[in-house]
């Protein structure tokens, strides 16, 4: 691991073909309420966006 926690070797993104693992993850929102990710796409498609940082 390099400066700022950077990777020493180039990595490649590896998005999964299925979101089963993602669907089981629970995360708090800005108020601390827990959200299970799979609930977002159980009734229709969901667009998930991972921010690089909150800055």
């Amino acid at each position, binding site marked *: 691991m390099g400066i700022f926690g950077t990777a020493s070797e180039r990595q490649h993104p590896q998005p999964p*073909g299925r979101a089963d693992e993602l669907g089981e993850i629970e995360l708090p929102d800005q108020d601390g309420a827990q959200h299970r990710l799979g609930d977002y796409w159980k009734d229709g498609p969901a667009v998930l966006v991972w921010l690089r940082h*909150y800055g």
Partner: protein
Amino acid sequence: MQLHRERETVEEAGAKLVLIGQATPRHAAHFRRRQEIDLPVLADEKRASYRAAGAKVATLNELLGPKVAAKGLVSSIRFRQPQGRTIGHPAQLGGAMIIRPDGSVAWSHMSEDASDNASPAEILAALRDV
């Protein structure tokens, strides 16, 4: 990421929009207020969802190289939004993904470097094909 300004378009397409950041709920609340975001922002301090989504950690060049710096400057000017203090793992990259109700991933764009983000137009076009 300006996609939150297209929330209505996403919802008109029958989809839900979810924003995930890599810090605490308190940081998420601050970010939400600062960016005037009108939807929940999830906080993934341990970055579990980043790993499950296959998001990568950047090398130094992918984080601060000339190409990244130039695109960052253009983006700051275009959106009149200078980058604030970095919260969370500085080299963790993000991305975007569209997931169907059966759990299959219909489309994804995970960042190759710190300047590589799918545009809202790109994401909305992909959503129309789902």
